[in-house]
């Protein structure tokens, strides 16, 4: 058991190292696009890989593309949070919204199945980065609200609120794309 755990840690360590060597430049450039400041972008690289390091086991089994998407989801979130702090104002979210509208969002499966990858991309990209991050981490990687909260450094309550908002918006977008309106139960 101990040896198996050790091998698992060793392979995850190698994976982490590879991901740093291969993608640190991309993370840096993406952070530069958001922050336009080299030192801050480098801080984003450090923080992103620290968060990846803590969560590498959550993506060690997924394919390379999805793993890179996970890394970049964290990086964008770190960069945007940094920009938000620097701009001296914070977006306040209210959990009450979730409570008021906690009805089930309805979305039809066959619509998604018929959509091309490019359509899926442009659809989800219509979400704001903060909604997209929680949506992707929740449904793309099956992470719990607590895990998402730790990765994005936000409260679990905010995760819940954002997930609901993301679902609601996506349902509306999908319905719009299919030429119909989203229905709420």
């Amino acid at each position, binding site marked *: 058991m101990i040896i198996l755990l050790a091998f698992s840690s060793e392979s995850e360590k190698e994976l*982490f190292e590879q991901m740093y060597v291969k993608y640190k430049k*991309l993370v840096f450039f993406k952070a530069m696009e958001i922050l336009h400041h080299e030192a801050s972008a480098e801080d984003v690289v450090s923080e992103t890989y620290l968060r990846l390091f803590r969560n590498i086991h959550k993506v060690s089994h997924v394919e390379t593309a999805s793993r890179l998407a996970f890394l970049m989801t964290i990086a964008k979130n770190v960069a945007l949070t940094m920009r938000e702090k620097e701009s001296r104002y914070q977006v306040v979210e209210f959990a009450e919204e979730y409570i008021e509208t906690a009805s089930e969002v309805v979305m039809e499966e066959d619509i998604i199945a018929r959509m091309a990858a490019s359509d899926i991309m442009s659809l989800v990209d219509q979400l704001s980065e903060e909604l997209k991050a929680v949506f992707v981490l929740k449904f793309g990687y099956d992470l719990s609200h607590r895990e998402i909260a730790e990765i994005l450094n936000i409260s679990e309550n905010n995760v819940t609120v954002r997930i609901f908002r993301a679902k609601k918006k996506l349902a509306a977008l999908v319905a719009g794309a299919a030429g119909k309106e989203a229905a709420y139960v």
Partner: protein
Amino acid sequence: MSEQDKVFGELARRYTKAYGESLLTENQELPSQQVDLPKADQAVKRLMRQSRRRIFYLIGGLAAACLVITVVLPVKNGLEETSPRIIAEENQSDTGPHNQPGQAGQTGGELILLAFSLPENLTVKESMVDQGQSVYLLADRLRDDVVLTMEKLEAPAEAADTAEMTIVEINGHQVYIRSDAAYQQLICYQGDLVYRMTCRYDVNTLLPVAEKIFSDEL
């Protein structure tokens, strides 16, 4: 998971795959110029060190326990009861050479036994005599293994190798340290012995050993 969440799951998985593939393409098309990220490099190196330590904990736990039971405890118990010189005499007269730690690796002289207890994180992995120096390889629980050499100081001039080293005082004694990107070094003198020790990562692995040398006057 509800049916609706399954649909969202399908959407999210298709999105992450498509997004990841677009990022892979983008990564390949990045300009070839090097980006210098010294702070990030350092941060990642620190993480990797932590990771090495964690792995060592996992696979080294059992080995360390065995080593402590079979080698260190008997040696330590012996040291607590008698002085090192007495032990050395006993070893010469009563004990066969193979009962001494690391005797198999001895060349050219007698092994100087440790006259102090080791910090908890360190255990004797191997010992030998090499060109008049007693050499101990000390396994560190945090994988920052230490090589300790002890040598009888023949003349004060031998202290010259501490030039350009930083002086730190421990229990009123001066020790000399040097931190390098490649290794950490500590030199100290006690009695007629010079102690030289090196490790890979952290000079704080060495300082407690020096502290033991000065505090454990067996």
